[in-house]
């Protein structure tokens, strides 16, 4: 029982992180039509920026998080300027490959900047542990879940109810018409890149204290969050969030009990099965039968 509770807690926490990464992905996609392959490396970058702010600038922990999140917002804006704006007239796929190129460059830059040995990010709750049903759950996991719940709810609410959300949705479904109605595409795309980068940074600083971070951990996280995005069919934010949570739980619980050394691959296996059985994702729209 204790083992189950511990695994479940891990799963919920991991699912929360996947939620942040995959939501950042989908929000950007809906606003600009871009699949941003640099998302994972932005997670890594966020964690490293926080680390640098703590170790080189000596800032307190929460301040380092703020530095990371705000800093990454501007990173997102920069990426928008160098990889998106100059390639606006070209098909979206060019921008996607450009983001892939950017991701590789980010990894190289991080390596140059901080070296390739793993780093440790301290947690705001230290090593405190919560005892529940005989299991020890790291407080950091609780923090992750609470923070994510708040942020994700905020994102979903903003998307559904506010004017900004409506503008993004309008852009997503018909860009040209939206522009004719006065939706400020430039502002929306800058904002989308910035916000999705901040979400990545948040995921990075939340998950980093759980284990040492290296240059590639964000990329691996992104690959797993693909599964959530695919299940959500690229269209539904709630579907993506729900899928992310489920995948996190499946990975930790099933992986913990049955295939420990392969647990990292479970999200991908789930994604593969979903693609095989229902190619448009669980929540995606059915395209006209070809």
């Amino acid at each position, binding site marked *: 029982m204790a083992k189950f509770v511990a695994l479940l807690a891990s799963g919920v926490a991991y699912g929360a992180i996947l939620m942040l990464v995959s939501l950042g992905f989908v929000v950007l*996609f*809906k606003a600009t*039509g871009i*699949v941003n392959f640099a998302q994972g490396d932005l997670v890594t970058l966020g964690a490293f920026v926080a680390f640098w702010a703590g170790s080189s600038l000596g800032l307190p922990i929460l301040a380092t998080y703020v530095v990371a999140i705000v800093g990454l917002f501007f990173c997102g804006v920069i990426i928008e300027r160098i*990889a998106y704006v*100059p*390639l606006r007239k*070209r*098909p*979206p*796929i*060019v921008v*996607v*490959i*450009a983001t*892939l*190129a*950017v*991701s*590789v*460059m980010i*990894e*190289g*830059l991080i*390596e*140059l900047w901080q070296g390739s040995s793993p780093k440790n990010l301290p947690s705001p709750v230290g090593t405190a542990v919560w005892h529940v049903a005989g299991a020890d759950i790291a407080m950091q996991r609780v923090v992750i879940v609470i923070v994510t719940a708040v942020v994700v709810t905020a994102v979903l609410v903003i998307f559904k109810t506010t004017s900004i959300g409506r503008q993004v949705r309008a852009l*997503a*479904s018909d860009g040209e018409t939206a522009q004719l109605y006065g939706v400020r595409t430039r502002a929306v795309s800058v904002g989308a890149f910035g916000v999705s980068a901040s979400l990545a940074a948040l995921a990075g600083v939340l998950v980093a204290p759980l284990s040492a971070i290296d240059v590639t951990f964000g*990329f691996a996280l992104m*690959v797993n969050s*693909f*599964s959530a995005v*695919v299940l959500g069919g*690229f*269209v539904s934010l709630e579907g993506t969030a729900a899928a992310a949570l489920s995948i996190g739980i499946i990975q930790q619980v099933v992986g913990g009990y049955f295939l420990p*050394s*392969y647990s*990292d*691959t479970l999200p*991908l*296996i789930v*994604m*593969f099965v979903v*693609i*095989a059985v229902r*190619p*448009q994702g669980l929540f995606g*729209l059915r*395209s*006209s039968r*070809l």
Partner: protein
Amino acid sequence: MTVPPAAHARRSGRTRSALVGNRLGTGPPVYREHRYLTWVVLFAVIAVAAPNLVTGQADQLSLNVWLAYGIAGVGFYWVFGLAGRFAFCQTFMMAMGGYMSAWITLRLGPNWFLVGVLGAMAVTGAIAAVIGLILSRAQDFYFAIGTLAVSEVGTVILTHTTSFSGADGSTVGIAAPEIFGYAFNSYLQMFWLSLAVLAVVVLFAILLERSPVRRHAIAGRENATVARSGGVPVVKVQVMLFAFGSMLGGVSGALLGSINSTVDVNSFGTSLAIGIFLMLFIGGIGSVWGPIVGAAFYVAIPQVLSSLAQYQNIVYGALLLAVIIAFPEGLVGALRILAARLTHRRPPVEPGATLVERLSSVLPTGKRKENDATAG
């Protein structure tokens, strides 16, 4: 014909004359191009020039690696260039082929090399056939991600099955291959072997271009609905091209294992995957030669930038970015257009041949997919 031949040829943009034309007079133009001649000339040139121009161990090693990558590139051309399905798992197939061949030759002896290669082909072909069938209904984007999943999961499985892949997922000490007692010990000997394999592979590719398979593949790629309505076996062609293309990846991996004497799953990881993108963008995907040319560039880069080794990732990334922005049709495509302009012929722009256009059809749109043919 009511139109004078010269004007006719100019208008249709055909760039080859019909030396062989009259015998095949009534077929499509693709059967009238001098592909066999090109093949003979190119491989003769390489066979003569390379051993003389390329000296030194490191360069010879790169030369052989280029040939092996070229084989994998032809396979990728079959999967993406012809069939139109972008597959992320070619690097995994290369690893798989490398391990399989190494496993066989380490246990049975280096003169079982040919069996090793056949084993690599069998394993990769079988896996690809199964995956291809499972994913046959998936749209192009989901097919790509599905193969990404296969690649990642497969790599993890390989790393864990140490009885197959060796301790730490690395098989070392692969002896030089022997065929019927002749051992390919030196890099120069491996060059001949690799060149021979690439030549055979490209020959098979040319045979495919001059056959209905090309027609079926392109039809299925450009408009699957209309193709199917016209009786083209789209799924069958796509799955088979995927299987054969993956088999070539396996052959490439087997060769690489012998060239490097080791097979390590890390050498087939993200770096090589980005490398394949680079090969495509530089070489283009419009012909079987594109990836081969691209592979040459990819192999040459570390040589040229040897002092910048630690900046490798940044350089690759920046290079990819630069090439995307400057050459949407790939280097080979750009050269073709340049050559056509210089000789005042109409440039052979095949719609959909630019890599960018082809990749564009892979992306999801997040919207309801409208199909003009069937809307109404």
